[in-house]
């Protein structure tokens, strides 16, 4: 008596799965009328988000961020450079975004993903226009030495909303960054200071103690999909491939609009939809801010 039942269950299950693969758009529409998504989320709901700080031991600052199964690992390595003539009191942040072949079936070795340099550029733009880091803080000796912060972000698993996760990991790594204690030696080179040196004081310390950056308004982002009159927040890779029109909004903690990015798409964005997306982003900013604060305070306790 058990067997036929089991096979029947299997067959209905197969049908749903086949339907999903053959008519993805119809499958989604059936869900959308019920105001729910196949993964059980409400339309406006983002996936669970976690931040783990200090994931990379050899870096001065690092963060592992997960939004659903989209995973990003960001790490900062500090190097010393000679500042430019135009801004002798400023350091520099070099941001690079990588999509290694492990993250998605689309990326193959030797053929880098097309979106990687674009996301890289958007991250640099976003972080510089939000003004979250005062580059003067990265100065060591005016005109002679300044920090160059290499911020590298690796996508370990790409399942939609790649930019959102990348930005969150970048800001989290910057909030975790500890600038090492250094001094300048006789040759004018910057060297790390160990504890014994502090006692000897043979060299003039340039940066006496390990310190953190004072971050001003932090930018957070939310990607939404526009499909007909529906707005789907924080899409998965499947949703992104089926419904093409995406809008990415970046707001900072003081509600300034840092970026409104809509690259084409068959659905046009009208003012009401734009305002709805901004409202969703405002909510998400609060959520992400508290997740980041929690991660930072957990680090302090340790």
């Amino acid at each position: 008596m058990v067997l036929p039942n089991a096979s029947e269950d299997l067959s209905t299950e197969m049908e749903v799965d086949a339907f999903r693969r053959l008519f993805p758009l119809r499958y989604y529409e059936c869900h959308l009328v019920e105001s729910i998504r196949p993964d059980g989320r409400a339309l406006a709901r983002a996936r669970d988000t976690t931040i783990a700080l200090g994931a990379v031991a050899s870096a001065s600052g690092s963060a592992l961020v997960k939004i659903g199964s989209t995973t990003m690992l960001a790490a900062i390595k500090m190097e010393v450079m000679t500042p430019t003539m135009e801004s002798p009191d400023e350091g520099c942040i070099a941001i690079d975004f990588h999509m290694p072949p492990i993250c998605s079936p689309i990326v193959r070795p030797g053929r880098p993903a097309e979106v990687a340099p674009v996301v890289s550029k958007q991250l640099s733009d976003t972080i510089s226009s939000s003004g979250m880091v005062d580059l003067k803080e990265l100065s060591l000796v005016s005109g002679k030495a300044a920090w160059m912060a290499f911020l590298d972000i690796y996508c370990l698993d790409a399942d939609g909303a790649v930019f959102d996760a990348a930005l969150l990991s970048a800001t989290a790594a910057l909030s975790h960054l500890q600038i090492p204690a250094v001094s300048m030696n006789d040759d004018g080179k910057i060297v790390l200071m160990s504890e014994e040196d502090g006692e000897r004081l043979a060299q003039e310390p340039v940066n006496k103690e390990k310190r953190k950056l004072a971050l001003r308004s932090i930018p957070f982002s939310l990607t939404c999909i526009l499909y007909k009159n529906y707005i789907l927040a924080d899409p998965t890779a499947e949703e992104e491939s089926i419904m093409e029109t995406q809008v990415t909004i970046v707001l900072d903690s003081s509600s300034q609009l840092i970026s409104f990015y809509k690259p084409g798409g068959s659905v046009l964005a009208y003012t009401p939809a734009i305002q709805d997306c901004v409202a969703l982003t405002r909510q998400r900013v609060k959520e992400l801010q508290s997740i980041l604060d929690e991660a930072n305070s957990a680090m302090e306790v340790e």
Partner: protein
Amino acid sequence: MEVDRPDGRSPSQLRPLSCSRGILNRAHGSASWTQGETKVLAAVYGPKAGTRKNENPEKACIEVIWKPKTGQIGKLERESEMVLKKSLESICIRSMYPNTTTSVIIQVVHDDGALLPCAINAACAALVDAGIPLKHLAVAICCSVADSGDVLLDPNKLEEEKMKAFAYLVFPNACVSVLPGGSLQVGKEPMEHGIITSVTHGAMSVDDYLHCLERGRAASAKMSEFLRRSLQPQLSADPSKAG
């Protein structure tokens, strides 16, 4: 509204526009677009058979190649390519020639501000020249926000550097329909009020952005008119489409 512009324009005054089509012999379609000193050349080849890997073979695909004035292509150009590709794909009727690729080559002749919108306008005119089926035309415009919150349209390079933020917006060109019922409406807003593409740089308030949209829409009507006019003569020369 008391912002002085170096070239004496009013805040919502565009620079002189010019557009010429069919300037390249070998390309299937070509156009040049000039806004003040900014000039971009666009050439269209195709549709050619086959699409690249990771593209949907059930639809026509557009590939954009950006040629800067000098030097090599960097991240900025890659971003422009991506924005152009996505914007053009959304105005093309992509179900018409499935599994084909149309190449759009953008050559920057001179950059004096609002480069990306200029390139989008040029590409759109070149697509029409090549006879690629389009749903509608698109017009792109650059709106910049001054520290005072004033919106200046179509800034040149000098102005761009002084602004706190700017937005590149692409609007659809309203279809002039012969069908009864007039122009297309989506809800309460006319179709040409929706945005196809938006790219912003710099921080501004949300209200500033909405203000940009409003001013951009008003100016896009004028540009649509210009684009339509400059594309018209050749169409009326074609006997099958006359009248």
